[in-house]
């Protein structure tokens, strides 16, 4: 079986992450309950006229994938696998509201076309003229991990050599409004640096696109090796620790082998308990890392976690802003990631220094 390496990354997030020469050098802090991305200059990558027509999700996906390809020093890939929870949700909203507001009349197809979940993946393929395998996974907080798993299986079995994978989600006004109504979004504006102390329900909603080139061929540009990824539709709080142990055992690792654990805490008092289960027990002596105060919560936010872990492994630096506890770990060889959203769709991912 071939090994799987991350050979290029591209991130558009609420931090200035699109520049691969930096690593969270400057931190943007927020005091809101919904945060947007720091936009790169899209026109550097896409003709201005085309960029104007593109939905935000498409724009972020196309540009993040372009950055990842440049980083991996390649022009094309064998396959494109995208994860997105909601697709181009603004266009979905536009089309539904137009149907209702105009009683099904005077509609144009643009927003319907862009609302299809696989639009981002299709547009990336169109731009690259990539006729290879093209999938889009849309399963809430494991959308990105499903894409990663699919790529891993194909690369391990040499069905493909180089694959572009990514997670992308954009904000939609109506979606935000109704998710505030059901307390999935914090009702109060929250200081992003203190999000874990908020003791309130809901998360700060974010958006973004994190794309990766994964390959079964080792290159100089390598960030990390993907050892394993596993998803679970259900796990109770009491089952999380056992699941983590089994996952490590399956990969011939023990807790002591883990140099850092990257956790998806989002400050939701109701569901951060899943993370606390790991951070206060099995991994209490491990360097703990968190990131959703930097990028917000969205269906594919865990792809930012993979971006972060990749950067840590390559640079061997741990930015102060992502430390959840203070340990003296300075060598990072193996990183475990754990994420879930509202107690469902859990994932464990293991990355190793190349």
């Amino acid at each position, binding site marked *: 079986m071939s090994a799987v390496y991350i050979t290029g990354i591209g991130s558009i997030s609420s931090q200035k992450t699109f520049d691969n020469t930096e690593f969270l050098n400057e931190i943007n802090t927020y005091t809101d309950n919904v945060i947007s991305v720091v936009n790169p200059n899209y026109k550097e990558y896409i003709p201005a006229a085309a960029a104007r027509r593109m939905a935000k999700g498409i724009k972020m996906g196309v540009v993040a994938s372009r950055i990842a390809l440049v980083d991996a020093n390649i022009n094309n890939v064998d396959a494109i696998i995208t994860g997105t929870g909601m697709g181009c949700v603004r266009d979905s909203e536009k089309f539904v509201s137009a149907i209702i507001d105009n009683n099904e009349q005077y509609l144009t197809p643009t927003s319907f*076309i862009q609302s299809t979940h696989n639009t981002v993946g299709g547009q990336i393929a169109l731009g690259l003229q990539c006729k290879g395998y093209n999938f889009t996974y849309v399963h809430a907080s494991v959308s990105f991990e499903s894409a990663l798993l699919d790529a891993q299986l194909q690369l391990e079995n040499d069905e493909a050599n180089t694959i572009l994978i990514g997670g992308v989600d954009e904000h939609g006004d109506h979606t935000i409004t109704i998710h505030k109504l059901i307390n999935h979004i914090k009702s109060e504006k929250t200081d992003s640096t203190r999000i874990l102390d908020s003791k309130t329900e809901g998360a700060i909603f974010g958006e973004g696109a994190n794309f990766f080139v994964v390959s079964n061929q080792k290159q100089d540009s390598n960030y990390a090796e993907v050892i394993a990824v596993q998803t679970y539709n259900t796990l109770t709080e009491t089952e999380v620790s056992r699941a983590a142990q089994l996952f490590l055992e399956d990969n011939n690792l023990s807790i002591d082998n883990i140099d850092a654990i990257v956790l998806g805490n989002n400050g939701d008092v109701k569901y951060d308990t899943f993370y606390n289960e790991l951070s206060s027990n099995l991994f209490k002596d491990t360097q703990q890392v968190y990131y959703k105060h930097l990028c917000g919560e969205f269906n594919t936010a865990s792809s930012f976690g993979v971006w972060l872990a990749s950067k840590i492994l390559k640079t061997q630096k741990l930015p102060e802003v992502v430390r959840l506890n203070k340990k003296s770990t300075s060598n990072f060889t193996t990183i475990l990631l754990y994420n879930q959203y509202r107690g469902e769709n859990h994932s464990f991912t293991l990355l190793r220094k190349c």
Partner: protein
Amino acid sequence: MSKGVAITGMGIISAIGNNVAENYQSLINGKKGISRVSKIDTIHKDDIMVGEIASTNLELEQQLGLTPDNNYSRTALLGTIAAKEAIQDAKIFDINAYKTGLVSATSVGGMDMTETYYYDYLENKSTQKYIEGHHAGDSTQKIAEQLGIEKSLVTTISTACSSAANAIMFGARLIKSGKLDRVIVGGSDCLSKFTINGFKTLMILSDTYNTPFDENRKGLNLGEAAAFLVLESDKVIATEKKEVLGYVKGYGNANDAYHQTASSENGDGATLAMQKALKVAAYTANDIDYINAHGTATGNNDLSEGRAILRVFGEEIPDFSSTKAYTGHTLAATGAIEAVYAILALKHNIIYPNLNFKTQMKEFDITPQLELKEKELHTVLSNSLGFGGNCSTIIFSKEQ
């Protein structure tokens, strides 16, 4: 690479039947499920026809024994019914006895409820339960829960009209790689105002019965349906001495990389998908006995797909037909619907007629199978082509 993945159960609900047996009876009796829309209040009701499932949401909820406070979209209801039939058909009594996952497909998801309560959510607390049911993964989570699948791999694919074919493909890969011992794969999509109006704006809805591969085809009829297959590893088959209905022998996925909603003139993506599937199956084109075409009856699809078939099969085109005239185009579910039909074709050695065909297309001289035909079948190739240039082919076989 060429060893097939065993299929041990299947379930379906569509406009031509509430289960596998009813669907088969309709197929061999030439009984269409196309009618005027009755369950959606749309201004287009007199100018479109659809493949609608007879049961109301309430009837489906009662059939599943759901309490009134449930927040199931119609997509979730249909999906659960079809997936439960598949489990029963595969004679699975303890779902967690083996590592079992679920890979479903949908494009509509919970849009039927979103479009109904879009503004109502803002003032009515009682409908807000559907907000969480909107995203595409929700119906899959519910189906998994209804089947008793826990702590396992459950995911959803949405690649427009090729979605369910891709769910079958990923499922087969999960079994082959040993990630899972058993996986339920398929898809579900209900009718919605969203898709009716979307396809209406693209001007590809027929105002009458759809006519695949006909020169005068006027577009597609939208349909709603759900179907699931149970795939099991050789180890499970041997241990449980299971009856095998057929095999997922080959699969191929390619992107047309041509246009967001239209297929390339010569069907580059479809050609590649069929070629890849043949390669995975270690077949040559001659090994295919029947093609269940995507055949949506839009001007663009049937021309592009027909040309792709010619490119792959040359002079010797196997019998082919589209079953969209029976069910309508069921979007993300279609790959699973037609997978069930392919396995029934293999089982009964039957090729279904391409209904409503009158006039030969002038761009080429291939003609679909027009009458029900009995023929010894060993292999069926099934195409699913979608928006975003997504092209998928699955090959089903009788022998592993």
